[in-house]
């Protein structure tokens, strides 16, 4: 159990750094969480034990009450104890994330592919895309709830709206990387526009598409949890508001831990896909 604790605690700082720096560029695929030697593993575990143990010790030493900040052991126990109750909510959140992300990603990819074929149309559409990317879609959730009620629908729409533009803007960057020599190569064999797209443009854009999908999925997760906190009686976000209103802090942090793990899994998933299919870039 302590091993399970160690990974998220340690990765929290890493993930925070990743959002801003390495997730948005391709080095994410080159320098990911790759563990090499036994000494490295030992060092990582040792540091985690010191940090987690230190927090536990400090909280006990200063008699910090559970409702202010529960210790790692209390959080671990809450995770173990409450998991059967939290698990269905994890399922709801995953449904929202996966369906909303899929819809947003597909629309984003298709739009990126189409728009980059027409530079003039791209110029016209660009400001709106920027608006979609920069507006926190969470802001629309109260409106969506008003229109669609408290079910899955407003949340899935919000996730799609958050993920889609992220996927689109990155994929468009990828599709725009025209290498005229490679396109000339394909054309010299009589390639059609469609063949040029699938055999040259798409593989060339793939690394950027994967970055877009990763960022889109993580923004989707944020938006799903946020939307759940705004309204509706289910999902991990709803658990957060519920537990905090009941001052059940160990349970609250157990949910936070699950969310961190989800974020890391998204990162690892796309890291592995990138390593398999887009490592030629690095």
């Amino acid at each position, binding site marked *: 159990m302590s091993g399970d604790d160690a990974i998220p605690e340690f990765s929290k700082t890493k993930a925070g750094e990743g959002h801003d720096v390495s997730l948005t560029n391709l080095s994410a695929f080159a320098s990911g969480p790759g563990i090499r030697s036994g000494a490295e593993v030992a060092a990582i575990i040792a540091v985690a034990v010191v940090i987690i143990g230190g927090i536990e010790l400090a909280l006990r030493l200063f008699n910090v009450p559970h409702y202010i900040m529960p210790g790692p052991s209390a959080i671990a126990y809450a995770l173990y104890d409450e998991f059967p109750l939290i698990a269905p909510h994890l399922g709801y959140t995953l449904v929202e994330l996966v369906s909303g992300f899929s819809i947003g990603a597909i629309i984003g990819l298709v739009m990126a592919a189409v728009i980059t074929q027409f530079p003039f149309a791209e110029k016209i559409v660009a400001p709106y895309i920027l608006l979609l990317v920069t507006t926190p879609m969470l802001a629309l959730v109260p409106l969506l709830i008003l229109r669609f009620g408290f079910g899955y629908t407003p949340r899935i729409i919000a996730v799609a709206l958050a993920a889609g533009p992220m996927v689109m803007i990155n994929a468009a960057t990828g599709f725009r990387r025209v290498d005229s020599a490679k396109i000339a190569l394909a054309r010299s*064999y*009589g390639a059609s526009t469609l063949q040029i797209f699938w055999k040259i443009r798409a593989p060339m854009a793939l690394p950027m598409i994967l970055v877009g999908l990763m960022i889109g999925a993580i923004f989707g997760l944020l938006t799903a949890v946020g939307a759940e906190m705004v309204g509706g009686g289910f999902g991990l976000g709803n658990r957060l508001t519920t537990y905090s209103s009941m001052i059940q802090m160990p349970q609250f942090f157990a949910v936070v831990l699950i969310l961190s793990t989800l974020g890391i899994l998204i990162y690892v998933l796309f890291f592995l896909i990138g390593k398999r299919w887009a490592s030629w870039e690095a």
Partner: protein
Amino acid sequence: MNAGSAKTPKLGVRDATKIYHTASGDLLALDRCSLDVHANEIVSIVGPSGCGKTTLLWSMSGLHRLTSGAIRLDGKEITGPHPDIGIVFQEANLLPWRNLDANIHFPFEIKGEKPDRAWIAHLIHRVGLDGFGGKFPRELSGGMQQRAAIVRALALKPSVLLMDEPFGALDSFTREEMNRLVEEIWLDTKTTIVFITHSIEEAIFLSDRVVVLSARPGRVAKEYRVPFPRPRSLEIMATKEVFDLTNTIKMDIVGERVRPKARERVTAEIVRIRP
């Protein structure tokens, strides 16, 4: 120059003119450029930077259209990419997400044809890439990448091979090695080759004829026969005849670029260093 010839040239360029329409105005890249390339011949095109060498080659390959004039392959005008014309691009232009085998099969994929495995295996062996099929371009040296690009270009058995400064990015030893390889392949296949280069030595080593283009707009300024027997050994390449030809061509190119005064100075220098 060979206009009176009764034989139809393999590749006949007639008054090729190309104007690029750019944001900063029209650019005349080729101006009524005419030349013939005969079957089984190696012709090099040299000229100062930006003289339209690559424009001419792209026009020959059908990758872009001429503004006026015509290029004919076996007497038929080229209007688009032609299966009988293979191209070796500057640098290797391999697709980095494909391994060598997949890169070499790329033309067949586009054409929807079955690759001729025996022929490809022969070519791979010829250029010395046996056992590298699973490697990705980034795992190979520039010379090896260009070998793979040559295999890719020859895989469809073109009757004309256009080479656009293929070895410009290689070090001089690798370059000489690649030149010998091209000669060997030519002795093997007798494919008609049009070779664009910055290097006069390379042009003389490889060619039956060297065509000098003028500075922009590109016209055919001069044309030289290279009469030396093949295979061209290092001894032949070190003779006075080769040296003189090199200097004459160099003068043509330099003369296009510098003022008469400077030209005299260069001439004097060349005379002084002559053996």
